[in-house]
């Protein structure tokens, strides 16, 4: 019993239950004091869930050191692990080691992907035939909406996994600038996910992940769980970004000037600039809608003088830059790995670095392209079209650079490279399907059709999912000292790559022909059924690839091939020390003495350990 309770996750969950009860009781008490009927479901459930999340955090113990400091006690350096927790249970407990936190984020991300993906398989099965076979409209809308938001949060969590795991190592630091904040950022995502998924138990919601009022103001109680879950998850994103930016500014190794950073760090910087700032707007938009539901505040209610389009502006001001958060790290992974497998410098490193910043900054100026048909002010449409099309320029710089990087290289094709190349192809399709959406008049056909769904599945798979798998296959030895099985990896790739291509090409085809998105049924006379069958089958093929991946991970952890050294012969700092990565990363600090990607230059060195002789 004591052993079970020593695990932070378990304590957190127990306290979450207690906290929910306290929250509900609090609402009942306040209502009685205000001489209102004691029980009203919506405020009770919302406040209960919020208290639940706070008590969860307290219960895990992740804030203990902060409470100690507040009461004036000395707090030492954060310890990697909680006392008395051993083995795999360590990963379910609070740790302040960025590598452990990175793995925790990774596990949570994979869990969310599995859940979100399962939702998709369920409603794709429903959609294979016209008519409603086994889902009611509200069930369909809830599963479809949750698929969207669970995948989005899964991506954000996965990105935190990459950035937290890799960046300290890549800059030669022993950890992030704020290890306890790092742990907090992870642990707040857990109750956020629970609250989000609990919407299923509270009647679901029928608005899509975009949650537009007035529909979201009338939606069932599950809508509040969606709003609250996302608001809480947003703090994870924001605080993680803060930590990353401070770490890169303050903890770089000696000699690591800005243009000697590994390129992934540039991607992480650009991503974090967005996450730190824009994320607050989706929290605000959702909280305003929560207040409209709870207190009748008429922000978006036309009958009270409110403006539904204001919600769209606030929402998309985050949600557009958010998509660059989703893809910039993955594009950074592609830039990071191509030189290793082509044994050639990253072509135009400075331009690639600046292109990440360019995409991030331009990305703040384009949100209106989601609103071309919304009835927003007419004079805004053309400027947003110009700004949106402009994003193609820094994105193009990356594609041209990648092509030039492999030109005249000496290229090998282990699994990580396959996923990198597959990512490039898919992201190219996603990117090229963009300009018709960016152009107002053509977008009037495409908006809210399956074409858009195809576009963003391509950009997300190409910019995130495939690079994500590339990164896992590439750094798995660094995390565990073992190498994932190549045969299974290639099988996974050759399932997911064609599966995804067929899925998204299909989607774009029916979308162009006028198939609307977010519908639980369609008229058989439209002639789209065959496409839907193909889409459903493709979805299952992708899922099969995911299954192969999980089998691969399981088998490898149990009895995989041990690889303690620099498996990929990478110049990057983390590969100059043994695998798995030592606890505090670098026993001897590293110094930067050359360029990061000088493959093919005899005698060149990127980093060396302090105290080693130089080669002059």
């Amino acid at each position: 019993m004591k052993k079970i309770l020593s695990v932070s996750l378990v304590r957190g969950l127990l306290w979450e239950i207690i906290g929910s009860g306290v929250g509900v009781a609090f609402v009942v008490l306040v209502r009685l004091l205000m001489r209102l009927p004691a029980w009203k479901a919506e405020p009770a459930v919302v406040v209960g869930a919020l208290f639940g999340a706070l008590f969860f955090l307290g219960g895990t113990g992740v804030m203990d050191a902060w409470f100690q400091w507040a009461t004036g006690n000395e707090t030492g350096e954060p310890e990697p692990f909680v006392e008395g927790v051993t083995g795999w249970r360590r990963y379910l407990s609070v740790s302040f080691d960025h590598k452990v936190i990175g793995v925790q984020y990774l596990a949570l991300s994979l869990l969310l992907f599995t859940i979100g993906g399962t939702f998709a398989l369920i409603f794709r099965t429903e959609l294979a035939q016209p008519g409603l076979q086994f889902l009611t409209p509200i069930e369909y809308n809830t599963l479809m909406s949750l698929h969207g938001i669970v995948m989005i949060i899964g991506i954000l969590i996965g990105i935190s996994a990459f950035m937290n795991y890799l960046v300290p190592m890549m800059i030669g630091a022993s950890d992030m600038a704020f290890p306890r904040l790092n742990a907090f950022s992870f642990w707040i995502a857990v109750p956020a996910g629970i609250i989000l998924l609990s919407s299923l138990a509270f009647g679901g919601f029928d608005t899509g992940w975009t949650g537009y009022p007035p529909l979201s103001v009338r939606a069932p109680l599950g809508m509040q769980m969606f709003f609250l879950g996302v608001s809480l998850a947003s703090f994870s994103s924001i605080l993680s970004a803060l930590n990353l930016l401070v770490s890169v500014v303050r903890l770089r190794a000696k000699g690591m000037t800005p243009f000697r950073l590994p390129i992934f760090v540039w991607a992480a910087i650009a991503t974090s600039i967005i996450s730190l700032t824009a994320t607050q707007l989706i929290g605000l938009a959702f909280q305003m809608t929560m207040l409209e539901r709870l207190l009748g505040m008429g922000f978006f209610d036309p009958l009270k003088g409110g403006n539904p389009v204001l919600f769209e502006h606030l929402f998309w001001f985050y949600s557009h830059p958010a998509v660059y958060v989703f893809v910039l790290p993955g594009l950074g992974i592609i830039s990071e790995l191509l030189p290793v497998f082509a044994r050639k410098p990253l072509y135009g490193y400075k331009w690639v670095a600046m292109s990440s910043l360019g995409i991030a900054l331009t990305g703040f100026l384009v949100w209106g392209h989601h609103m071309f048909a919304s009835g927003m002010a007419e004079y805004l449409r053309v400027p947003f079209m110009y700004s949106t099309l402009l994003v193609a320029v820094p994105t193009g710089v990356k594609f041209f650079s990648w092509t030039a990087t492999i030109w005249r290289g000496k290229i090998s094709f282990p699994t990580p490279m396959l996923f990198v190349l597959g990512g490039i192809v898919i992201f190219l399709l996603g990117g090229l399907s963009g300009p018709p959406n960016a152009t107002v008049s053509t977008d009037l056909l495409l908006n809210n059709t399956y074409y858009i769904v195809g576009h963003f599945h391509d950009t997300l798979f190409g910019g995130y999912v495939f690079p994500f798998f590339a990164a896992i296959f590439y750094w798995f030895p660094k995390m565990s000292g073992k190498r994932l099985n190549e045969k299974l990896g290639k099988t996974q790739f050759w399932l997911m790559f064609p599966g995804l291509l067929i899925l998204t090409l299909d989607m774009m085809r029916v979308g162009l022909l006028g198939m609307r998105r977010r519908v639980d049924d369609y008229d058989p006379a439209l002639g789209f059924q065959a496409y839907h069958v193909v889409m459903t089958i493709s979805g299952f093929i992708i899922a099969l690839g995911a299954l192969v991946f999980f089998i691969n991970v399981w088998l490898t952890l149990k009895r995989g091939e041990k690889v303690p050294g620099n498996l990929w012969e990478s110049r990057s700092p983390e590969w100059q020390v043994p695998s798995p990565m030592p606890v505090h990363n670098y026993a001897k600090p590293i110094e930067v003495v050359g360029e990061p990607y000088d493959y093919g230059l005899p005698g060149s060195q990127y980093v060396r350990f302090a105290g080693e002789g130089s080669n002059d």
Partner: protein
Amino acid sequence: MTEVKPNALRLGVLIFAALAVLTGVEFAVAIFLNTWPLLALIAVIKAGLVMYYYMHISRLFSADPNPDRESYTYKLATNRLGLWFFLLSDGFIFGGLLVSRINLMGLTRPELNQLLGLAVSSVLLVSSFFANRAETSMALGDRRQALVSVSITILLGLVFLAGVLGVEWRLAPFGPADGVQGAIFYSMTGFHAFHVLTGVIFMTIIARNLWRGRFSTEKHWGVEAAVVYWHFIDVVWIFFYPALYLIGTLH
């Protein structure tokens, strides 16, 4: 150790005087000219003064006296950067609320009591003066003065909360559900008041630790952080006050 000049206390008084004068000018401009660009400009100047002289934003750009990563001063500068990034992020919430106010109410403003508005704003401004005094005193080693100033800051913060939540919210001729002015007024003042409350709690923790002698001239990051956070809340109000009370015609 962050260099603090001996005349820093006097500078604090001077800046407060400037802020008070500017607030008076602002009020006069609102009554007699009612032109929003000028009011916006005054708010920007006030905010600039607070950010430079009270929040010491220039410290972010000064070189590290000690390059040793393990040294206290290095970590102090790292903490400072973290705090400012946090404030930058938090600022976006208030920015979003301002944008919403402009979108929903344009050049109209909610029907509010001007004297009350001026009163609570003044209370907050004075509290910022004392917050600055607290930090400056601590940096100069005067723990007693720091504790007195922190306590006054807390008191004034509570007075502000009482003034807004206790008085203004009751006296307002509209409720939260009464149209856009209700929605905007209660959400803007509500989000801001929540931050004032957390500021008061933070200050109380600092006061307690001050009293127990946990801070020194060299090491008083907690005091600095609480005070900078307090000034941030004041800067937000520097923009919210004209946005709610001064700009535009009655709704």
